[in-house]
């Protein structure tokens, strides 16, 4: 494991992002609870956001001039804000679903009826 011996670099951050991302995917795939699925989405978004932040830090990489700089930060900010919006809507849908179907199991929501 050469990465463990090195000072922290971009790759380290990318690894964390990858793990978050994969966890999010698995979470989305396995959870039957609508809110559980939502949590998976949050993990995926954060995985992406970690990557953005990592790419924008010039001191983490050998080719500092290629760093994203502020753009990465700004993209992350947009991700955060949009994730909040997404969570609000998704939660509203989940509650609406819960109110009409009296369950939160997404597997049972297979009809196109409100």
């Amino acid at each position: 494991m050469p990465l463990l011996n090195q000072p922290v670099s971009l790759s380290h951050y990318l690894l964390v992002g990858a793990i978050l991302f994969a966890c999010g995917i698995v979470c989305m795939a396995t959870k039957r609870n609508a809110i559980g699925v939502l949590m998976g989405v949050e993990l995926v978004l954060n995985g992406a956001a970690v990557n953005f932040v990592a790419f924008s830090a010039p001191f983490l990489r050998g080719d500092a001039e290629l760093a994203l700089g502020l753009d990465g930060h700004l993209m992350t900010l947009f991700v955060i804000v949009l994730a909040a919006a997404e969570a609000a809507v998704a939660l509203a849908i989940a509650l609406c679903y819960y109110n009409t179907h009296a369950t939160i199991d997404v597997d049972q929501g297979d009809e196109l009826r409100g």
Partner: protein
Amino acid sequence: MINWHTCFFLLFATITCAFAVAVVVSANVVRMAVCLIASLAAVSGLYFLAAADFVAAMQLMIYVGGTLVLLVFGVMLTARGPFVSMKITPANWLMAGLAGGALLILLLCAATSVDAWKTAAVAASAPAAEGGHTVAPIGMALLGIRVDALEQANPALRGGIAGYLLPFEIVSVHLLVVLVGAAHLARARRRRRPAEAVPDASRSA
């Protein structure tokens, strides 16, 4: 070389990943929410380490303090009896595990594929300890002025750098629409119970 940046990176990265895995593994939705909170709070620590102080504060404030409270609220509204923990079939696990594992391997390969990414340019602790001082530039960028890129050497990059005024506006309008939509969606159908449909004297008084 062990320095504090490494130390804290390992700490936060471990917390992040461990709790992310816990979110996946845990069957109880309330515990999932708790793990998610811990995981995302640690992510904000990673942002601090990557000298993205404003983003880190925002992550804490909006994500952890706002979105996740909302999520927990949703959990509490719906988590009762059978929905607290729902069983997942092994086949489901297998499929998801395979897909996730494949994706993870792919991403790991990609993450370690570029040599320049594996070597930190400077001792990483110094800029991180200083914090990024990104607040003012980010604010200016959102207003369409890139104070950080004025001396950008690479003309290709300088050409590609634009202000973020328009996206900022779009996002703000988007947020408004989303909030209105969410408020509308969450309205429950009005129920009438005969016992309550009768107006009692106290209300007409």
